[in-house]
């Protein structure tokens, strides 16, 4: 019997000799078409970097803009932008105009997506504190959405089931995005913030599922009991709909 070192070296050599498995040409072309579309879409919606002098100029110009102009400028603002509080006010108005349960659920899920996008942008800009706040706000929106589902259970179980399905899909989709993000960031604080966000969202999901299983119409699912959200009632007018960073 050969010594271990020699045997393992032979095994290593054999592994080196394994031919690579290559994708089919058709698969590679399909891949490029998908990647190219994603790259194009990403480039179109990516917020442009703003050097400090441009930010200063923008802030000075904002001072002479009419309120409408400021409102318009806030639409895609991020948590580190001076326009961000206006974005929150606009979201508040939009929430006030969402009357049906389906609209209210959609409203909260849209806000959750917006918070996740903001968190990603803040991580990219090394503003982990603001990213963490955005992720907390994201989970608060999920909790608000869960409250909408719970409230609807009393009035219309069929619609409630549909709403619950939408909420579950949204949380699962966000979790996949967060899992990807978690693998891409190297900052331990950012990673911890993402892990906490995923845990909170999982608790909301669990609370919704438990309520459905128990036939419990009450909306006080897990997230609130953890003391992580300030959500109250079924959403409209909630302070958590406002994306202003908490200091």
């Amino acid at each position, binding site marked *: *019997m*050969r010594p*271990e070192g020699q*045997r*393992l070296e*032979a*095994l*290593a050599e*054999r*592994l*080196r000799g*394994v*031919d*690579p*498995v*290559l*994708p*089919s040409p058709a*698969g*590679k072309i*399909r*891949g*490029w078409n*998908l*990647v*190219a579309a*994603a*790259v*194009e*879409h*990403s*480039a179109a919606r*990516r917020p442009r970097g703003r050097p400090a002098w441009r930010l200063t100029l923008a802030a000075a110009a904002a001072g002479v803009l009419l309120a409408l102009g400021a409102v318009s400028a806030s639409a895609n603002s991020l948590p580190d932008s001076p326009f961000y509080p206006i974005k929150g006010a606009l979201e508040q108005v939009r929430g006030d105009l969402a009357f049906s349960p389906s609209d209210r659920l959609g409203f909260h899920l849209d806000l959750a997506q917006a918070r996740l996008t903001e968190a*990603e*942008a803040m*991580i*990219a800009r*090394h503003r982990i504190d603001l990213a963490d706040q955005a992720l907390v706000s994201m989970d608060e929106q999920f909790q608000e959405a869960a409250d909408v589902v719970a409230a609807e259970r009393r009035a219309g179980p069929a619609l409630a089931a549909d709403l619950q399905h939408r909420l579950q899909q949204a949380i699962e989709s966000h979790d*996949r995005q967060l*899992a*990807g*993000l*978690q*693998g*891409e*960031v*190297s*900052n331990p604080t950012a990673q911890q913030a993402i892990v906490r966000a995923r845990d909170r969202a999982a608790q909301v999901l669990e609370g919704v599922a438990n309520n459905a299983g128990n036939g419990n119409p009450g909306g006080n699912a897990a997230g609130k009991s953890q003391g992580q959200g300030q959500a109250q009632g079924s959403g409209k007018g909630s302070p958590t709909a406002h994306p202003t960073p908490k200091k």
Partner: protein
Amino acid sequence: MARAASDDDRLLIERVRQGDQDAARTLYERYFDRIYNYVYARLGRVEDAEDLAIDTMTRSLTRLDLFHDQGVAFSSWVYRIAHNATIDHYRRQGRVILVSLEHATLPESSDPSELALQQLSNEELREALRQLTDEQQQVLILRFFQDLTAVQVGEIIGKSVGAVQALQHRALASLERALQGKAMQ
């Protein structure tokens, strides 16, 4: 498989950030085959390997803003994303896909302790490799299938060179045991 110069990658990355599709195409061509090969070695299914390789390249080329704070080579970052996509795939499946070693047995030899390695097919070796732990698979695939150095592997899996070498030794020993164990049955 040719290894890309990291400086060249950097230029291309800057161009992709500015929306240059040709630069994205160059990076895609540079890394897609390698990532496909890596994922296939992990999963063993052509369909999954194709989907995850595409997913990895999509994430890599659309999330370049996040690449800023990595402090590692772009290639290492792409492999990390591929690894996480693989783990996520396992999680979504709700189970770890283990391929039976039934067909990965070593041919019988007059000396049962000596591996008749050359008689093993490449696929049999890959199947045996998939029986190892996640870290062991990663190290052997990156070192021997992807032809990366211990330094590069360390950068990808977040370990020192010494730890990678120790892990590689244990992984080879585990692989040998797995193959021998089946051969002796």
